[in-house]
């Protein structure tokens, strides 16, 4: 392949900016509150489940958690 046919290399500045952006995203995820992290886990479940299902049958527990209350009617909360 000649140099002319090659995709252009990203500049060091562009790569550095992309890495900074990625680091900022990870930091934003790390700094979420525990409740927000649970919500994000549920969102991630929705993303990865179709990908897993393409590779193999899903296991019985591999499903997206409900976000809403599904508490049994007999339940009385105790803290």
């Amino acid at each position: 392949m000649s140099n002319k046919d090659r995709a252009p290399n990203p500049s060091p500045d562009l790569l550095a900016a992309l890495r900074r952006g990625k680091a900022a995203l990870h930091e934003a995820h790390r700094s979420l509150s525990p409740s927000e992290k649970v919500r994000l886990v549920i969102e991630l479940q929705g993303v990865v489940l179709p990908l897993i299902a393409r590779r193999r049958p899903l296991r019985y527990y591999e499903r997206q958690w409900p976000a809403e209350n599904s508490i049994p009617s007999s339940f009385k909360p105790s803290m």
Partner: protein
Amino acid sequence: MLTFGVVMSFRDALLAIHRLRDARLISEYAIGGAIAVAFWSEPVPTFDLDVFAIFPTSVARLVSLEPLYAWASQQGYPTESEHIIMGGIPVQLIPVHNALAEEAVAEAVKLEIENVAVRVMRPEHLIALYLEPSARTHKRLERVAALLEEGGIDRPLLDAILKRYGLTLP
């Protein structure tokens, strides 16, 4: 800007675990596994909630989790294989299997999650448990790396735990 509401199903699962303790079927618990890692580091996709439990000392030798499943059935929580479905979330109750796991539960920290005070294993204990020979898979070593890099580890504490239990970092 990310904004999130309360996840009621997760809160229900946490309250159900507290009920289990109130009923004295377990004497103490701590959340471990990927959800605990997420609280100290970055969320990863996972599908069940690992709850490590210490059982009452009145039970001489734990031979079955049947009393837990019987309680779950009475309370209206379905069971599927080894999971109890609490608030729609598959919860796996894992009896502490050795001194390290028992220490991890005993020294867990309280975090407030969905307005419930919840016991979560410290990141140093999570790392140690993942480094046990029987648990040392590629996926778990990735979690160790994430915790070391991003989990705000107390390094002297981690070193002391690893030394006490004869474990080494990769």
